[in-house]
């Protein structure tokens, strides 16, 4: 097709053989496609470029077709998928940019730096849109804490997330932590960043304007995180040992300066486009910016500021050194750009220009080392649609039931509250600054984080959610459930869900049973997003998450943003006043399949998880939002892991820093009589929330619920300060001192993380 455009090998570089191509994970089809695009054999530099851009991470070669089925439009969408972050419209000319990304593999190797640089990368994705980061969220999955390595990973990851966000000065407003054996050896670290901007200031990462200059801004380029293939493609000598790829180290201080400089460059109108040099570094940022703008670029890698001498173009192109930006600007702006950067103690070096021939060209010391048609480079990767088939084991698990004898319900609730996945995450978010910038309305420990948009009366609410156990047992329902839980968390706070970003963490897609999970979970997410009018504005796919025993539990993390029209109507999660009536919104059918009760108490991760009724979910959201806006609610908490019993206990125990707890007295008699006691207490049917209100608001609240067709059970009253939780059903009574429950719930993680006393 294209006539050959020449490029020559960089002196000393290994010759490109089939072996080298294979080491770069390019299969036969891809190798043929490359030869076809170039009309010749690629140089080693080109091989590196192709291998980066045609990796799953950049090309989405296994997943693109599925991702296209997501709903991505709506009147609230300013920027859908395809840019560094999605953007949703807020009132008064404001907009919110947000995105989630995984840093799983780096965190498995070096938890602290892996997690820290994960936060750094996602912050850059948000501020390159022209948005000031205002919040970070994090979704973490680890193997159980009885394993020392898992504890080490957990401690390092949490410290990494915290140190980075804290230092940059962005509050962490939410997250989740789940523990399951499937993550042993392959922890998941998904970081989400949220930023605010004036819609008019939005900037995209599209290079344009022939003759415009490309500049590298920020940190110097070292040999950090260079694709393992580059190491493998050299003979092992003492010299090459010294040059082995290095762990990426985060520098939040430089990030902070880069953040300020970037926003000044964008809002000051100095630049045409900007993009983070993230995964695959300079290569992917420059190639993607060029392709989006439909232009060519010429880079001179010998002009890139480097940290170490003797770096080859291959290394410079593929380095994943952190805290670097690629900027496109008109030539006459360069001095001004340098002045802005200097103000923030940063370097800005011209390293190339926009060209009109559509070629992605790399020059090093006057030698053309790569010349690839740009559009083909970015869009030419062969696409795959692997077979998808559910495994027999998965089907069998879904129809299994627990065999263990159940303990009494009093003990069962204590076991659930002591399960690290359910227990208080105070040990985690106590390490995250949640109040810097002084805009925080709700810190972690409630259903959603909420912050005020400065100078306005409105706010945004945010959450990340995924119940991977449900996804593992039924990927379609689990996918729906992830979106539904996120929306419920927002609605409980009084926020209207606006849109999502997703992080799809799965195993090896070439395994039919894994790809089945992927396809089905995505179908579930898409259906739920359509039902809730919460379009997908972007996300991230992380595949090949395998532990020695097989794939991780499929984990499609959903990050969702909602709008609170008036922050004075935000609804807290926990009970607030003795004597307030307690109501359960939503239907109870006592579904125990896939429940935490079965998994944590009966040690059986089996059964069909509850089917998610999207119409009922939407109706519940509407009730919660309407009731919040009418100021009818004193508290609202969604029912999820552990069902009603856990939700009641959480509402009684109060927030993470509460100085008092509340008792509660609840009577289940004459409500959903067909449901078993276990089903009532621990069932995990969706579309439910536990609320409290002033006695004089009960009728009004019931009326709002009825209007939306949502069942409303009046269950009881909030009890005395420091009182007991009492649940009654006919002659049966279960009873817990709330102070004791709070201690179990609060200590579950710290006691597992405290170094064991020295054995005598």
């Amino acid at each position, binding site marked *: 097709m294209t006539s050959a455009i020449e490029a020559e090998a960089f002196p000393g570089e290994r010759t490109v053989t089939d072996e080298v191509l294979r080491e770069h994970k390019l299969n036969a089809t891809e190798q043929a496609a490359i030869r076809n695009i170039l009309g010749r054999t690629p140089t080693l530099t080109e091989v590196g470029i192709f291998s980066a851009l045609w990796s799953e991470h950049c090309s989405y070669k296994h997943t693109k077709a599925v991702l296209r089925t997501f709903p991505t439009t709506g009147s609230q969408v300013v920027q859908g998928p395809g840019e560094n972050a999605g953007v949703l419209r807020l009132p008064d000319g404001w907009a919110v940019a947000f995105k989630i990304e995984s840093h799983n593999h780096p965190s498995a190797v070096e938890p602290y730096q892996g997690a820290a640089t994960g936060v750094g990368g996602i912050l850059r994705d948000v501020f390159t849109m022209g948005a000031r980061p205002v919040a970070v969220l994090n979704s973490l999955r680890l193997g159980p804490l009885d394993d020392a390595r898992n504890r080490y990973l957990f401690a390092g990851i949490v410290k990494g997330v915290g140190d980075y966000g804290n230092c940059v000065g962005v509050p962490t407003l939410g997250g989740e932590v789940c523990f399951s054996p499937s993550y042993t050896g392959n922890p998941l670290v998904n970081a989400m960043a949220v930023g605010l901007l004036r819609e008019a200031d939005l900037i995209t990462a599209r290079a344009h304007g022939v003759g415009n200059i490309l500049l590298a801004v920020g940190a110097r380029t070292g040999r950090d995180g260079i694709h393992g293939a580059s190491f493998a493609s050299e003979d092992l000598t003492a010299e090459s040992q010294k040059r082995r790829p290095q762990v990426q180290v985060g520098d939040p*201080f430089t990030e902070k300066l880069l953040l300020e400089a970037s926003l000044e460059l964008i809002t000051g109108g100095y630049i045409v486009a900007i993009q983070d040099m993230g995964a695959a570094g300079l290569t992917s940022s420059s190639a993607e910016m060029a392709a989006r703008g439909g232009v060519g670029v010429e880079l001179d890698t010998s002009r890139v500021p480097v940290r170490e001498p003797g770096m080859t173009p291959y290394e410079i192109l593929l380095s994943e050194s952190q805290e670097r930006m690629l900027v496109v600007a008109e030539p006459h702006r360069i001095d001004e750009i340098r002045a802005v950067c200097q103000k923030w103690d940063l370097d800005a070096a011209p390293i190339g220009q926009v060209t009109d021939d559509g070629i992605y060209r790399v020059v090093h010391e006057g030698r053309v080392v790569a010349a690839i048609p740009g559009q083909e480079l970015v869009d030419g990767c062969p696409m795959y649609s692997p077979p998808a088939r559910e495994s027999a084991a998965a089907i069998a698990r879904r129809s299994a039931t627990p065999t263990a004898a159940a303990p009494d319900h009093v003990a069962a609730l204590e076991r659930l509250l002591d399960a690290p996945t359910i227990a208080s995450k105070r040990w985690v978010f106590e390490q995250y600054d949640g109040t*810097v910038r002084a805009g925080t309305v709700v810190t972690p420990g409630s259903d959603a984080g909420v912050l005020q948009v400065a100078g306005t009366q409105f706010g945004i609410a945010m959450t990340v959610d995924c119940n991977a156990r449900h996804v593992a047992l039924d990927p379609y329902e689990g996918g729906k459930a992830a979106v539904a839980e996120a929306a419920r968390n927002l609605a409980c706070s009084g926020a209207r869900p606006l849109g999502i970003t997703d992080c799809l963490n799965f195993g090896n897609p070439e395994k039919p049973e894994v790809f089945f999970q992927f396809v089905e979970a995505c179908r579930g997410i898409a259906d739920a997003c359509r039902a809730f009018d919460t379009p997908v504005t972007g996300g991230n796919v992380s595949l090949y998450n395998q532990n020695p025993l097989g794939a991780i539990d499929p984990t499609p993390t959903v990050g969702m943003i909602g709008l609170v029209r008036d922050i004075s109507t935000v609804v807290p999660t926990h009970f607030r006043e003795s004597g307030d009536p307690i109501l359960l919104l939503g239907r109870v059918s006592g579904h125990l399949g896939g429940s935490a009760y079965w998994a944590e108490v009966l040690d059986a991760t089996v059964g069909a998880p509850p089917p998610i009724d999207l119409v009922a979910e939407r109706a519940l959201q509407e009730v919660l939002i309407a009731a919040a806006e009418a100021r009818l609610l004193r508290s609202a908490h969604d029912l999820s892991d552990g069902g009603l019993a856990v939700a009641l206990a959480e509402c009684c125990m109060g927030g993470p820093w509460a*100085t008092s707890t509340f008792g509660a007295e609840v009577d289940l008699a004459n409500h959903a009589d067909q449901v078993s006691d276990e089903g009532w207490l621990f069932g995990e049917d969706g579309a439910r929330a536990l609320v409290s209100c002033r006695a004089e608001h009960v009728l009004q609240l019931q009326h709002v619920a009825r209007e939306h067709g949502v069942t409303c059970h009046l269950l009881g009253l909030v009890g005395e300060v420091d009182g007991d939780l009492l649940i009654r059903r006919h002659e049966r009574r279960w009873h817990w001192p709330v102070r004791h429950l709070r201690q179990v719930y609060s200590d579950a993680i710290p006691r597992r993380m405290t170094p064991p006393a020295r054995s005598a």
Partner: protein
Amino acid sequence: MSARVAVVRFPGSNCETESLAAVERAGGDARLIDYRDTDLHGAAAVILPGGFAYGDYLRSGAIARFSPIMAAVRAHAAAGGVVLGICNGFQILCEARLLPGALLHNAQQRFVARPVDVRIERNDTACTADYRVGEVIRIPVAHGEGRFVASPDVLTQLDRDNCVLMRYVQVDGTDVPHNPNGSTDDIAGICNAAGTVLGFMPHPERLADASLGSDVGQRFFTSLVKRVVTRAAA
């Protein structure tokens, strides 16, 4: 007449915006000053805000204390001017020896971000006049290096001169340690004998707006503004 309060931005400061806002809300005239500046431009009081100046590399405050602006801050303090260090600002003041002692890594070796209960020990200072002595308020801390230590001599002197500005205290019903970082004698903040140079770890500027839940920290700023207005008028 409104009083000029300078808020110094170091590279890595994070809390300058909310500090400026708190001063303005208290009726003061707040100005941002760059760390490379060498002059306070007539400010009657200086705030060194929270954050991670120079990334807190080496020790928090260790590099920031050499910033060009610090000579002016030092001169201002020496002339009896008001200097207030919040969190990172407190760390900088200790490193600069404008306040005694040092702030070391939290005893538990982890960052701590949560509300704490502190008792105001003195209200005859430049920023606590609007509190009662003994009043207990709940405000957030967020720091990795907040464990105040000093030699026994210095501690004795702090006591003698009544230089402990606030202490972490136990409030009924809390189930987290009242002292969030292992600080000596539960010290959360100190000042010089005159009450003009002050430093503390908690962040009152984050609780300065009732619409976000509590404005119990705002009185630090109303006190400060009143103080500098009165002095300016005198």
